[in-house]
């Protein structure tokens, strides 16, 4: 496995050289984009700005299903559904995490605007979900309390 990785890194290095020569775009850019600025943002507002989703309108058509109290912040299950017609994207942000943006999901070709995932939460915080539909942005917020319980702490 290490070998495989080394090879990959080698390949990446070679690619880097080609890149500098301006002949190719990076593989990652071809296969997938990752919004570095949005993920590096230290506030939810900055992350939304980088996503191009500043000042979303509050909507009750975004349903956030999550526990009211999470026993352990290492795994907090969150299920999100947007009932807004034409939703093409959903972003999940944990307000008080050091880097609030947890994920952004784009839906196409019949995928329903729904995602369920487990996230890490450092402390009790608001969870914000922003949905994009028809070029407009909508938001719903919900608080999840976090208790790190257990023995020996």
């Amino acid at each position, binding site marked *: 496995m290490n070998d495989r990785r080394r090879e990959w890194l080698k390949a990446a290095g070679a690619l880097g050289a080609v890149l500098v020569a301006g002949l190719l775009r990076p593989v*990652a850019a071809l296969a997938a984009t990752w*919004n570095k600025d949005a993920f590096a943002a230290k506030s939810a507002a900055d992350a939304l700005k980088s996503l191009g989703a500043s000042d979303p309108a509050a909507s009750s058509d975004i349903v956030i299903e999550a526990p009211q109290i999470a026993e352990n912040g290492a795994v907090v299950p969150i299920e999100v559904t947007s009932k807004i017609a034409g939703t093409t994207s959903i972003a999940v942000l*944990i307000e008080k*995490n050091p880097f609030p943006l947890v*994920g952004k*999901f784009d839906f196409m070709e019949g995928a*329903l605007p729904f995602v*369920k*995932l*487990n996230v890490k939460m450092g402390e009790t915080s608001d969870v914000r979900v922003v949905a994009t539909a028809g070029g407009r942005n909508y938001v719903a917020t919900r608080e999840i309390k976090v208790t790190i319980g257990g023995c020996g702490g």
Partner: protein
Amino acid sequence: MAGPMKMRATLASGYTDVRVLMSHPMETGQRKAPDGKMIPLHFIQNLTVKVNGKTVVEGQISQAVSRNPVFSFRIKGGAKGDKIEVSWLDNRGETNRTESAVA
């Protein structure tokens, strides 16, 4: 190493339910190893869901997704035998993919 993945795609009422499990440490870069050294950031950044070769979900995620990520997605309609493929790419360039037919 890219650890194992497991996927289950099943027909529900009006949609296909895709549940996928991925083995990955999802290191935040803020955790210390027993020897006191910081463990570097290591996390999945991109995941892609395809149905019969067509991309239906593109996800970008951060290190705040829990270790050994589990995701559920829903795709409208669908039929038994549809080929679902999920792949991921992490910040070190490691990738993995899994494929299964809708049951």
